[in-house]
């Protein structure tokens, strides 16, 4: 083994010996780049900025600074949500009118028709049409319900399913549609 290692080291020493390259190569290179535009400063800044963005970095913040940063993010998210949230229809509400009837309300100014569909009407789009109650696009319907747990949704113009953000979401819809849950009485 020592002989092999010694032989390898000798070989590497020989391979490391300098090799002279034709000095005219310099002239050829310079002649060729003469026709190439000078690399742009702005181009360099672009690549520098791109590298800066790609590089990972550690940021140190004080606890107070971190709190402020987190608060800023929350505010930004809230603002973004208010921009992104659909303007209409909005604020559907299911209100328990008394022990056996529940009033469902949705604001959908642009809707031509709205139906309430759910476990209580076998998800029929025709069984429980909602009624426009004023010029502001408020739709409502009151449904008699026995005690129990019901999944429901609003069907707008026969093709748009909406859950009720004011009620717990129904996570067990077999078809993955948005829906909500209303619970009447004590189960």
């Amino acid at each position, binding site marked *: 083994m020592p002989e092999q290692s010694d032989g390898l080291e000798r070989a590497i020493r020989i*391979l490391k010996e300098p*090799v002279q390259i034709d000095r005219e*190569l310099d002239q*050829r290179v310079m002649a060729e*780049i*003469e026709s190439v535009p000078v*690399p742009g400063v702005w*181009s360099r800044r672009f690549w520098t900025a791109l*590298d800066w963005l790609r590089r990972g970095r550690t940021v140190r913040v004080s606890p107070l600074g971190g709190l402020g940063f987190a608060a800023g993010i929350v505010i930004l998210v809230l603002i973004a949500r208010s921009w992104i949230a659909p303007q209409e229809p909005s604020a559907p509400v299911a209100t328990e009118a008394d022990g056996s009837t529940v009033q469902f309300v949705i604001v959908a100014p642009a809707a031509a028709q709205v139906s309430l569909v759910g476990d209580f009407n076998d998800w029929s789009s025709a069984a429980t049409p909602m009624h426009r109650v004023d010029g502001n696009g408020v739709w409502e319907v009151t449904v008699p319900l026995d005690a129990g747990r019901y999944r429901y949704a609003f069907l707008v113009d026969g093709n748009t399913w909406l859950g009720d953000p004011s009620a717990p979401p129904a996570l067990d819809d077999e078809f993955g549609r948005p829906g909500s849950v209303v619970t009447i009485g004590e189960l």
Partner: protein
Amino acid sequence: MGIHDVTGESDAALIARVMAGEPDAYGGLVSRYRDRLGRYAVRMLGNAEDAEDALQEAFVRGYRSLARCTDPEKFGAWLFTILVNRCRTIGKQRARRQQLVIQDEAAVGRASVNHTEDRHALRETIERAMAQLSPTTREAFLLKHVEELSYDEAAGGGRACRNKVMD
């Protein structure tokens, strides 16, 4: 364009001059890196003609892409990466021409060494051994043991310089 004696001027300073509109300053980088890069090219490709072609192309490509070398301190490693890629391309082209590695006696003869008979015999043995290596293995061997570059250095050229355009 002339070649300038730039002894003592850093790579970063030369690159800054080029970027400021002095393309002649690039000549300083060419003369600084010519021999070291040339040694790799000759050992890798086995003949001076191909090696000088690879070297010239690497220098010109380096100039064209100089804006992408955002960390001038790593210019040498970055340029090396360009050369490695050029050698790969030329090596593939040459493989089609069925040439053998290290057949150019002139390239061998230019090495500035004292040629004793034993040494010459050893050199031939080494050249034959190198020729039997696959290009990938030969490249890795030369980069690690002869040029003493880490594979990352040679393959990445320093991440501060962007090398996507080199082939």
